[in-house]
């Protein structure tokens, strides 16, 4: 019988870790998530059902530690040449069960990309923050506090606004940064965050890359307030809310790298964000495939399984085809992350633009495909029982985050067509 493992992966790209780790997560998904996920929507505020699954995955299985150096209790993935493909697989497996959990899980790594990845490991900060994640079996969350009320994804629109719209300020006062500002919407906020990476400006309104600052702020620092989670169309496992920074003081060394470099490596964060998004899409879609296959094999029309109706099969083919391509492209991009020697630095405009291209393609296909899958299921398509509508709601969120499609298009056109004023 065909399973999701029959979808193509570029086998030469896989680290030896890929399958063992993948199977651990799949087992976790089957036992800790899938039996409960139909009740997750009502659990969006309390996380009574969701929390134990996080604890198992991140704390007990230790997945929250993987990026940190081995000698600090991590798994050393940040210094390996398979951080991309390995995390691609992990994200895919988690998202198959619940892409809200996948993003919450993925974003733990997100600020850490700034300090744990070769060639720009910040050893001092790794030492500082490793204990939060590596010396506990409780789940720990990190978040990138980027978006602000006034401009939405403007923060990510680096090419045009060059950081000039950032309103969160960081002022050096002796050996400490004093941070003030209001952020909203980051994954892993809404009360659960333990460590923030905060996008700030050291000179409001400036377009000078040197004034862009990425500063770590432990969530229990005085002056940090997290609001309650927002209610969303889906992804109950991912909490999002407001964060206020009021005269928050952190050591000077908490700035990731300093003038110029913060912005440079922040683009690598975008690269990882796009890679992760593709993996979430791919994972969700593989579960859509599984559930849809059940449906069209069980339900009959004119005395045969629904899948034997040629016109229905045409739609099934389109969906399988897209999953194939999403996976191939996703792994290719992950491999490009793993091999900067071949494909250039992960923070290059090229890598960012290409990641945006793949990400918005995957999202567009997925949203359309799941819509069609639901349609094949007739009225049942709207039912939570079949799980497909859940992925539909979740996938829409992946499509919209990180600046959405139009920002992706702008960056892709800018790079490939050398546009200058977009």
């Amino acid at each position, binding site marked *: 019988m065909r399973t999701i493992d029959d979808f193509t992966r570029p086998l030469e790209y896989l680290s030896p870790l890929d399958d063992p780790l993948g199977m651990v997560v799949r087992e976790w998904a089957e036992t800790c998530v899938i039996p409960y996920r139909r009740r997750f929507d009502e659990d969006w505020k309390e996380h009574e059902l969701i929390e134990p699954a996080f604890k198992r995955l991140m704390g007990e299985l230790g997945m929250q530690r993987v990026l940190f150096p081995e000698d600090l209790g991590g798994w050393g993935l940040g210094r390996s040449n398979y951080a991309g493909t390995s995390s691609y697989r992990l994200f895919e497996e988690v998202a198959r069960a619940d892409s809200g959990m996948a993003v919450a899980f993925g974003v733990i790594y997100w600020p850490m990309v700034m300090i744990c990845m070769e060639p720009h490991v910040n050893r001092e900060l790794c030492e500082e923050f490793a204990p939060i994640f590596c010396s506990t079996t409780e789940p720990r969350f990190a978040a990138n506090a980027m978006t602000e009320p006034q401009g939405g994804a403007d923060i990510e629109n680096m090419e045009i606004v060059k950081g000039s719209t950032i309103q969160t300020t960081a002022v050096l006062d002796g050996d400490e940064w004093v941070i003030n500002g209001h952020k909203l919407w980051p994954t892993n906020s809404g009360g659960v965050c333990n460590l923030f990476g905060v996008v700030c400006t050291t000179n409001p309104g400036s377009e000078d890359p040197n004034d862009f600052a990425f500063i770590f702020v432990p969530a229990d620092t005085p002056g940090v307030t997290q609001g309650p989670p927002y209610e969303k*169309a889906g992804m109950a496992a991912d909490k999002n809310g407001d964060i206020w920074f009021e005269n928050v003081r952190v050591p000077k060394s908490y700035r990731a790298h300093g003038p110029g470099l913060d912005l440079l490596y922040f683009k690598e964060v975008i690269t990882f964000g796009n890679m992760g998004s593709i993996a979430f899409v791919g994972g969700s879609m593989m579960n859509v495939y599984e559930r849809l296959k059940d449906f069209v094999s069980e339900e009959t029309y004119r005395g045969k399984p629904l899948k034997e*109706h040629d016109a*229905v099969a*045409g739609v099934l083919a389109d969906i399988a085809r897209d999953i194939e391509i999403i996976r191939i492209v996703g792994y290719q991009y992950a491999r490009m992350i793993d091999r900067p020697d071949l494909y250039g630095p992960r923070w290059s405009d090229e890598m960012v633009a290409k990641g945006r291209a793949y990400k918005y393609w995957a999202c567009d296909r997925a949203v359309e495909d799941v819509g069609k899958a639901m349609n094949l299921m007739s*009225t049942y398509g709207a039912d939570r029982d079949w799980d497909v509508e859940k992925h539909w*709601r979740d996938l*829409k969120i992946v499509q*919209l985050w990180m600046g959405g*499609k139009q920002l992706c298009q702008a960056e892709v056109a800018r790079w490939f067509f050398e546009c200058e004023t977009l």
Partner: protein
Amino acid sequence: MSDHDLFPYLYEWASDMDVSLAGNLRRWAENEVMAKRLELKEDYEQLLEPAMRKLFLEIGMQRLLWPEEHGGDGHNTPAASLTITAALEQVARGDVGIALLLSSLWALQSAVAMEGAVNGEACAALAEAVAGRDEPALVSLVLPLFRDEPQAAAKHGKGGWTVEAASTRPLACGGNASLYAVLCALQGSEEEWGVLLIPGDAKGIERGDALKRTGLAADINTPVSFGKVKVPEGMCVAEGREACRAMLSWLYLGISASTVGALFASYEILKEWGDSRVIKGRGHIFKENPLTAAVMAEVAKETSLARMLTWDLARILSEPAVYGPPGQEGNHVTAAMVVHQVSQAAENAINRAMEMMASAGYAREWNLERYWRDVKALQLCLGPYELAKMDVSRYFYRASTL
């Protein structure tokens, strides 16, 4: 002029009454639903049920198409197709789920209460529910989920029919219908199909657990089983494929008009966003950016064309003397083409509108995501588009085995 009068349609067809009714229902939507939504969200008891009572009973929508002789307002002519289009645009703008319930009721009424073809026995039996009680008349349609395979069977015998079906999935109101209208495969009849009316409290009905669905919060739905339910002769209200298709054509019109209403609401939300949002940090208003404007244009275009097509369908159903009866194959296929087109266009348009609004697109607070879920759930009431295409191809290519 309100915003959505912007959207073109052939308004020469709308009567003064239609226009004035639309104005009233616009106010209903704003006062009874939209104004309270931020606080009450999708709460059934506090928001949706009271709004529905007001609409069905106080404003009297459930009596609109009902013959005067059975206690209704007597707008039971084919021209009612135009009236319900004008009405459902406004109702759905407020709440799509409520619009579905009304569409279901009106589809049934088109089958039993149309001037010149009033089914006296059925109308008498229904008069209490429609015009007598102080409860909304909720009709649960049990239609084929997969094109031409009814979910239920009815056997003809002495004195009437016996309906049998396990675990059907009604379009809506499985859990609280006043009345089930069940499209059955007929046994012991010359006709293949018929719609049988069954009171909500009939013996032999069993309801399953409430379904959790992606949208349409006003609809309390459950699977329903019919265990040898006895139905009197006259309660087979649409006998034969053509009669059943006539009811479906009216239902499709209702769903189409409801979808247009959801598009109006989505447009308004997007317009508010486009007017106020600043991007690129340089005082650029969102709507003035050509890339986002191009997407916003798609939303407006889809809304406009969906509206035009819906009114065309309404006109066709309103003039059977010119265009033939609603259950005629060509008209049924036209209704199917229009409603699927409108529904898909709306899915696409609201998807695009959400893209414009980024996280506000999926935050419940902004309500756009609710229309997105509702419109999709409404679309699924039509069954798979791939199977509907078989009807289209049968008609246009004279294919005989599809």
